[in-house]
């Protein structure tokens, strides 16, 4: 499978703070990829590097281009939504549509207007008069009307209530994603996007700690609710994370064959949230 994003040894420092510390990342075309990390992990810096808004060291290719050279050409094939605050507040809804129509060669005004007609957003209102949810809907309407290869979403639903959040992702899947386009979603609300993802990346302290297809996770990771009398055997298999759960111990293993784990207790694939915690705790212990 070809990759829409290929990054090698990306480094970025802000003064003494290392935001990216040798990031290696590959994202397959057509994937819905989650970039998960705690606050300050380097998610936004990574995404800004991908769209040429942040100067980084290292090798980087997005949709076949180096974002550091001719960002504006790259943006014909890539769209970006950050958190809800970035649409200019002084523009009217109709004016922001006029602007995107004027500057973007792949924008379809009719599509945007059709999408907006299904919402309560009035065309003559200024963006500062819209609710956070409406601003996100408007931004999504603009993005969905652009024929792009890659959509980059940085904490797109932060500050929105559950109804807007659910609608946002439903629209994204039903109206934007067609199997060929790639979506990268950065968030720390892991549970919300878990079911959407086909590719998963964990980042912590500027380093990638996991880069895997979702379909490969069951082959690599396993969580076992270990019976009390099997704890010694479980410890011997070098779990990456152990936690107390309902009076028992839950062990997370990496690259241990399932045949060796089945007899320890109840076995299943960890959720993304549990795996995230496990990988981060593993980092701390190392």
């Amino acid at each position, binding site marked *: 499978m070809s990759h829409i994003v290929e990054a090698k040894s990306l480094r970025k420092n802000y003064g003494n703070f290392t935001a990216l510390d040798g990031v290696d990342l590959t994202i397959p075309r057509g994937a819905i990829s989650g970039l998960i990390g705690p606050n300050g992990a380097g998610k936004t810096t990574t995404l800004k590097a991908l769209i040429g808004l942040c100067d980084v060291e290292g090798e980087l290719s997005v949709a076949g281009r180096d974002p550091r050279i001719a960002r504006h050409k790259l943006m014909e094939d890539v769209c970006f939504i950050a958190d809800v605050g970035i649409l200019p507040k002084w523009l009217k809804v109709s004016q922001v549509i006029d*602007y995107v129509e004027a500057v973007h060669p792949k924008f379809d005004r009719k599509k945007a207007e059709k999408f907006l007609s299904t919402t309560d957003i009035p065309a003559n209102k200024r963006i500062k008069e819209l609710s956070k949810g409406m601003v996100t809907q408007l931004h999504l309407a603009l993005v969905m009307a652009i024929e792009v290869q890659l959509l980059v979403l940085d904490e797109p639903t932060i500050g929105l209530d559950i109804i807007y959040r659910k609608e946002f992702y439903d629209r994204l899947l039903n109206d934007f994603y067609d199997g060929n386009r790639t979506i990268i979603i950065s968030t720390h609300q892991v549970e919300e996007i878990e079911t959407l993802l086909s590719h998963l990346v964990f980042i912590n302290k500027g380093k990638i700690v996991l880069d895997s297809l979702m379909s490969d996770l069951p082959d690599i990771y396993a969580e076992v609710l270990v019976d009390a009398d099997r704890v010694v055997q479980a410890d011997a298999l070098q779990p990456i994370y152990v936690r107390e759960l309902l009076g028992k111990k839950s062990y997370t293993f990496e690259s241990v064959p399932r045949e060796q784990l089945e007899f320890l207790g109840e076995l299943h694939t960890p959720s993304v949230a549990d795996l995230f915690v496990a990988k981060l705790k593993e980092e701390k212990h190392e």
Partner: protein
Amino acid sequence: MNKFAVLQFYGLLRREVLEHRNLFVGAPSVLALLILVATAWVATQIDQSQLAEGLEFVSMLFDGLSPFDMAPWIIPLAIPFYLTLYVCSVIYLINTLYQDRKEMSVLFWQSMPVSNLQTVLSKIVAIVFVAPVFYVLIMFAMYLIGMIWLTILGISNEVDLVGIGWLFLAAIVSLVLIYISAVVTSLWLLPSIGWLLLFSAFAKKTPLLWAGGVFILAGFFEDFIFGTQYLANWVASRTSDPNQYLILEFQKVFERVFNYDMFFGIMVGSILIVGAVFMRRFTD
């Protein structure tokens, strides 16, 4: 240049006008309104028959005179607009690459397929060529309202208005000269435009303080280290003479544009503008 590139640049200019409508349209409109109200108030304080006599005198005075000869005498009427334009230009230039970073909408603008060079150029074209158009149109509207008022006054007092017609033509010629003056002066002041844009793109806070502070520091260090004041003298030589700001005759346009000092200033301004483009690219 293909058709889409032209439309795209038009879209960028439209954005500038919408974003800075207070500076481009609001400020001169308020000024014109104030002038009209003040003029109307003064007119109410004067006896109508005296007003009609004055109108007749002015009409006779200008009857048959060339609008091109009369225009320089009308240009001073536009000076309040001219000063407003330059104050608004400074406000515009120092904020234009800073404000969107402050309110975070820069991420939206930069998520569009528009280069930093196109963005900065659109801002320069907007303030050098587009803003004066609005100022001149608003002055024209003000002159037109004044003309209609004088016509009504003249007709009601049976005054011959032929000379007033010539005066109106002269006012139109003066507006063309004002527009040309504004554009040529902006080119003359291109180093200042580049300097303000550079710090607008650079500063994380208070860009005007940065622009002024760095200039003063540069002058101070030049004086302290070399014992010279070339920088301060050069800036003073380009800004202190009022004649540098207005062109009163069309014949003067060529010599004001095509001279060594103008080219040198454009070169320095261009270097600073390129700096602003790079600063826009690398400020994150």
